[in-house]
């Protein structure tokens, strides 16, 4: 057996291991991996997500036991300090030596620190490892405690902007300082940079272009940056992101050939100047270049492995540097030659400052080929454009259609069908998967669905940018094979939610087990049970107490589970109007049960930290004081938020509070595919933020304007006007129709905005259904809603009145003890769970 030693356990080193263990000749090799960091390989591409993750482990490419299970010896926190190329040995920094037959250098790179005076001061950081991020976070916390918030990132390239986003997320006022006159100078032209700049400035980042740092000034700590143009910037911390340099020191010291400006010289077999030694990833100097992207690194890993195993794979002669990513919430893509123009090429540009979009394509003089381009603000066409470019496909007659879209009737997508791509078209560049292998996986019968294809080919598992194209390819291929592509709930029900809704209704199915027996299979799961519970609730208005076992965990206990397994309690406060007497009761209950209290975004009061067995006692007191369940735990109507309206406000046009209460009282307890929120504003100043809700009502001259399908959350959407100048009753009538139509037809966990996006015909069609009654079902919808409203019952009242139900809230079946594992820590004048 021969031994491979791999120096470096970053993304490219990991990819080498992954490819090795999948190889049929795996057993002829023993592999030993050295990693300098304390953790096994992690996803550096998504490093900036670290702050939002629960633990650094979520970034790991594979857990530690993956290496054991696959017989890979991994030694973390160990550095190779010397290679004895004569005797084929490596020496670690601890002085141990190991023999190898093949050596692969995947030592990566380090951030370049430009020679600026003062760069040794406290408060200067780099941005490459999890430890760097932790150090940045700790330092920022210390600064913030002292009331200091100014942070600067030196470098406005791709990584610099990522670092700037991370700094902003930490709550620092962040400046980006770039030497070039534009952002991302390697990917964007001036117009693209201008647009990106205005987008990210609107999010609070401050951009300084064309600035050359002369000195970092401060006594011990960073206090100010002086620029060569005489200007200065007062600053409390600095993150340097001025490019990368290869980690070639061990190769250099051991006599392996290095390029003039660094990097281990390799040929197209990834061989270095010493036989048996290979270099891959950011340390390798190929074609006079160092490549700081994962895709070329992965290709190098594949080539080196193939060569070691006796194959003949070679590195592509030219490396494609196209890239697509989301920076500071803005989509940016650049492909081919983004700048080419002049003798050989023509650039077509589209700029829309109102919508924040810039698109540029460069086409050959004869208009036949796409040579490159830039997309800022909307990169949804990237995959199609990239395929046209990389496969040198013939362009349509009007090349501007590529960025403007075809206008007029009979418009088609840019590519026609994804199936028109050549088999060699690379779909996933990170994992180098081409169209042929995706289609073959399905045609050969090896895979039958998207999940299987992703598992077998690994397409879209790295950056995920090609996922929409993989989805389309799988769908289209299955269709071409005559296989029906259906959106099914899960393995237990081969139906969509809408079909299940109809089945339950038509068959008058009243129980989950009955549904499973009649049109499902197996014993159900955490996906289909809550979907069916929602359907039963929407059809029969049954509360979560009727079929307890199929309720999602929060509905089962009629409360919201929180970090430490305790619950929060949110009583309904319709329209946000509450009497002083009721406020006092909430305070008394919170004090009695030692609950953390907070005002919610929906104008209610949330009481946190209730133990399971305390829930019924708390609710008994609340119900006695006239409160009802707020359904904050359910996929159901939450709140109808209101501004104070014309009763008090000197600008108010109509009585928004009274109308909000009427709406909330009507739809309370209504279960739906996802949560539902509403708002009513008394004038167009819109203080209730009604257009950020699933339905929003705004007072105007002559009545109410009704807006639908908005939401806050991760992808905020403004609600769209459905009808204007309505009287109270008509507004309610339209709301009834809209809500029932949504509840009947939306997929599980699809909010109204996403539902509308997928609804064929969009808002215009919805207007026809709701306002013009084109389906002739308006009356049925209204009657259905009337029936549901009539059957409303407070499920907490039901629960505390039934001794059998109360068993549900007992922490242990076999003892009356309460859970003694709970730990709280103080938080200001209240408490919180022990942090994770």
């Amino acid at each position, binding site marked *: 057996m021969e031994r491979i030693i791999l120096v470096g356990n970053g993304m490219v080193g990991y990819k080498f291991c992954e490819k090795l263990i999948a190889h049929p000749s795996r057993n002829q090799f023993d592999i030993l991996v050295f990693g300098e960091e304390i953790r096994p390989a992690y996803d550096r591409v998504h490093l900036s997500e670290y702050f939002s993750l629960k633990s650094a482990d979520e970034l790991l490419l594979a857990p530690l036991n993956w290496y054991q299970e696959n017989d890979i010896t991994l030694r973390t926190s160990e550095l190779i300090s010397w290679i004895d190329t004569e005797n084929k040995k490596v020496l670690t920094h601890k002085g141990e030596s190991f023999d190898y037959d093949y050596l692969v250098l995947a030592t990566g790179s380090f951030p370049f620190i430009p020679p600026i005076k003062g760069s040794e001061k406290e408060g200067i950081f780099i941005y490459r490892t999890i430890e760097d991020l932790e150090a940045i976070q700790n330092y920022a916390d210390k600064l913030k405690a002292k009331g200091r918030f100014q942070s600067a990132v030196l470098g406005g390239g791709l990584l610099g902007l990522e670092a700037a986003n991370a700094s902003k997320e930490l709550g620092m006022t962040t400046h980006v300082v770039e030497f070039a006159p534009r952002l991302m100078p390697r990917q964007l032209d001036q117009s693209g940079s201008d647009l990106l700049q205005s987008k990210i400035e609107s999010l609070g980042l401050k951009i300084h272009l064309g600035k050359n740092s002369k000195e970092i000034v401060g006594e011990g700590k960073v206090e100010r940056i002086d620029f060569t143009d005489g200007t200065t910037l007062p600053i409390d911390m600095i993150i340097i992101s001025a490019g990368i340099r290869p980690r070639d020191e061990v190769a250099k010291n051991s006599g392996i050939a290095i390029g003039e400006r660094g990097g281990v010289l390799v040929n197209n077999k990834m061989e270095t100047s010493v036989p048996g030694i290979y270099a891959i990833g950011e340390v390798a100097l190929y074609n006079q270049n160092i490549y700081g992207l994962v895709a070329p690194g992965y290709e190098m890993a594949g080539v080196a492995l193939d060569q070691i195993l006796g194959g003949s794979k070679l590195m592509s002669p030219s490396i494609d540097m196209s890239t697509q990513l989301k920076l500071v919430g803005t989509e940016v893509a650049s492909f081919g030659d983004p700048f080419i123009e002049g003798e050989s090429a023509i650039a077509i540009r589209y700029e829309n400052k109102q919508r924040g979009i810039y698109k540029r394509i460069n086409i050959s003089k004869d208009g036949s080929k796409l040579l490159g381009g830039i997309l800022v603000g909307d990169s949804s066409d990237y995959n199609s454009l990239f395929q046209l470019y990389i496969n040198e496909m013939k362009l349509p007659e009007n090349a501007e259609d590529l960025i403007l879209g075809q206008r007029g009737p009979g418009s088609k997508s840019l590519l026609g069908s994804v199936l028109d791509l050549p088999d060699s078209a690379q779909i996933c560049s990170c994992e180098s998967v081409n169209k042929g292998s995706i289609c073959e996986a399905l045609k050969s019968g090896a895979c039958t669905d998207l999940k299987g294809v992703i598992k077998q080919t690994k397409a879209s598992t790295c950056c995920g940018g090609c996922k929409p194209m993989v989805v389309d390819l799988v769908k289209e291929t299955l269709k071409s094979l005559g296989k029906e592509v259906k959106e099914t709930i899960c393995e237990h029900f081969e139906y969509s939610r809408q079909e299940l809704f109809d089945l339950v209704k038509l068959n008058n199915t009243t129980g989950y087990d009955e549904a499973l027996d009649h049109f499902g299979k197996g014993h159900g799961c955490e996906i289909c049970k809550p979907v069916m519970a929602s359907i039963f609730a929407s059809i029969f208005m049954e509360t979560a107490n009727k079929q307890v076992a199929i309720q999602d965990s929060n509905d089962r206990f009629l409360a919201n589970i929180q970090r430490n397994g305790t619950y929060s309690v949110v009583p309904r406060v319709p329209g946000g109007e509450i009497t002083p007497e009721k406020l006092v009761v909430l305070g008394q209950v919170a004090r009695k049960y030692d609950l953390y209290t907070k005002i919610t975004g929906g104008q209610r009061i949330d009481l946190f930290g209730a133990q399971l067995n305390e829930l019924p006692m708390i609710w008994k007191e609340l119900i006695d004081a006239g409160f009802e369940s707020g359904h904050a735990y359910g996929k159901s109507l939450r709140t109808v938020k209101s501004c104070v309206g014309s009763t008090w406000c000197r600008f108010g046009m109509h009585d928004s509070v009274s109308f909000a209460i009427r709406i909330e009282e009507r739809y309370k307890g209504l279960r739906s595919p996802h949560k539902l929120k509403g708002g009513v504003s008394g004038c167009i100043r819109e203080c209730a933020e009604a257009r950020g809700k699933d339905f929003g009502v705004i007072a105007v001259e002559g009545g109410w304007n009704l807006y639908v399908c908005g939401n806050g959350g991760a992808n905020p959407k403004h609600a769209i006007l459905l009808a204007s100048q309505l009287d109270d009753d008509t507004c309610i009538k339209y709301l009834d129709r809209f809500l029932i139509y949504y509840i009947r037809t939306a997929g599980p966990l699809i909010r109204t905005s996403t539902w509308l996006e997928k609804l064929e015909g969009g808002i215009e069609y919805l207007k026809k259904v709701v306002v013009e009654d084109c389906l002739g079902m308006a009356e049925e919808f209204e009657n259905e809603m009337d029936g549901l409203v009539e059957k409303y019952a407070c499920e907490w009242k039901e629960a505390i009145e039934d001794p059998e139900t109360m068993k549900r809230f007992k922490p242990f*079946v076999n003892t009356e003890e309460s859970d003694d594992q709970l730990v709280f820590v103080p938080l200001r004048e209240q408490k919180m769970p022990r942090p994770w």
Partner: protein
Amino acid sequence: MEEIVSLYQTVQPSEVISWIRVGAVNDFPENAGACIKYNSRQIAVYHFTRTQKWYACQNLCPHKMEMVLSRGLIGDAGGIPKLACPMHKKTFSLEDGSNLNGEEYSIATYPVKIEGGIVYIGFAD
């Protein structure tokens, strides 16, 4: 933290030293879970009425170390009885405690037997 994890080790039926009585069949919900306490351990017990099978596992979620698994939804994946944690919906096999999402966390499982309408959990100590 590690201390609490080490309290929970899978017990095979052949390793049972003591069968602990934890309640009557009727004390447990149908097609759902409930929790029992045995000394310092919290054990989740599930009754699958459709298959007339019982399963038991640690109540401790191995991901965030909270005592919550008994409150999760149950069902099957390709015939394997499973449990979904109420915190982040990670799913585990109730047959061998393995993680069904391909992640590293797993849980300890315990044998259950029903005799004369009484539920017993098997421990190896």
